């Protein structure tokens, strides 16, 4: 009897040890920063949740989720509301600064068709650099005052640059640098962290509820959500940048927004852009 009890005890103990041995590496793997695996899981989640949506259509936000809205949007695209911003952006882009240089002097390929490579990780600075930030740095380097990150001129400039990249697949790189991996992880954490009195994270709306209504609006999927930036929003009666989108999302959850281009915003842009790699740039966009 005693021998039988001892053997059962030993058997249970060895089974528990085997189970521990099998699960431990998984726990370690789950905590390791692995952007490739994260992007794959992120995309698969949306592809499986919305099997009838074409992959490249996710970048069209709420229109990929609702046929009626999509038809209205397609008609509106004949005379898109961002057209004025696009024209203004092109003119600004080619107009020389006081020192005779232009934005083209600050960017690879003269700034044309490069939107899909932003944001990037600057190994010299050790931080993420967004397109908006690069544009203002370009201005300051050439003796010009920086623009507001949330609208007007910045939106026009980025609208033009996005337009020259339309259709190009998002192509964000994460160099083999622990600081870049940390920035990606920090952006991911920001994306999933609940904040504000409403206790919402970005994911509460754009992962858990895309296609659902929040008041009169249809929520966009998180996948490819930045590919359409900047956007004309009827709600804003104007254009808005990625910075503006983050700031207003925070305010809507009753969280005090961070300053535009805060490290957290730069990192969440890095995360969201990287997980949308392969999906086409569709900006500038128009949203209700």
């Amino acid at each position, binding site marked *: 009897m005693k021998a039988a009890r001892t053997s059962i005890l030993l058997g249970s103990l060895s089974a528990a040890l085997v189970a521990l041995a099998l699960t431990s590496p998984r726990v370690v793997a789950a905590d390791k920063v692995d952007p490739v695996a*994260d992007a794959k899981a992120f995309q698969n989640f949306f592809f499986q949740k919305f099997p009838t949506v074409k992959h490249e259509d996710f970048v069209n936000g709420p229109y990929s989720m609702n046929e009626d809205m999509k038809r209205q949007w397609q008609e509106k695209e004949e005379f898109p509301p961002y057209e004025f911003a696009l024209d203004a952006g092109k003119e600004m882009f080619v107009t020389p600064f006081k020192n005779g240089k232009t934005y083209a002097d600050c960017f690879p390929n003269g700034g044309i068709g490069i939107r899909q490579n932003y944001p990037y990780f600057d190994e010299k600075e050790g931080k993420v650099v967004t397109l908006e930030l690069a544009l203002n740095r370009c201005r300051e380097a050439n003796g010009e005052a920086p623009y507001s990150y949330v609208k007007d001129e910045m939106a026009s400039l980025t609208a033009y640059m996005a337009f020259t990249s339309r259709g190009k697949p998002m192509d964000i790189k994460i160099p083999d640098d622990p600081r870049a991996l940390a920035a990606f992880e920090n952006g991911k954490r920001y994306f999933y962290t609940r904040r504000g009195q409403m206790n919402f994270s970005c994911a509460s709306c754009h*992962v858990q509820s895309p296609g659902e209504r929040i008041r009169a609006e249809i929520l966009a999927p998180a996948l490819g959500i930045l590919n359409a930036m900047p956007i004309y929003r009827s709600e804003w009666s104007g254009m808005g940048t990625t910075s503006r989108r983050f700031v207003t999302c925070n305010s809507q959850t009753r969280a005090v927004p961070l300053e535009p281009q805060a490290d957290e915003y730069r990192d969440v842009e890095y995360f969201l852009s990287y997980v949308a790699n392969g999906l086409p740039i569709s900006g500038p966009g128009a949203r209700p």
Partner: protein
Amino acid sequence: MNRSLAVTMFLALLLALGLAPAARAANEADYKTAYSAAEAAAKEAASLRHQWTVTVSTLAAAKKAADGGDFDRAVAAAREAEALAKASIFQAISEKEAWKAMEIR
């Protein structure tokens, strides 16, 4: 009702009135105490990057009421702001780990 019962009831009423806490109006000192507690909590929430807009607006409402001399309202608003700030601090601390539950894996 006999006379001794009436006297007893009268005395009991006097005693009850005498012991009842007086509902006194809040004064500036009460407001300053409540406001500084709320302000300290709000500062902590801000340092955690988890400030709520309603904390800021409720703190402002407390100050506005105090500036207008309405210390009852000012104290009530300051206490509400403190509670909101403490809730946002709790959120910031619990989300340090809780965010992982929502992650797509």
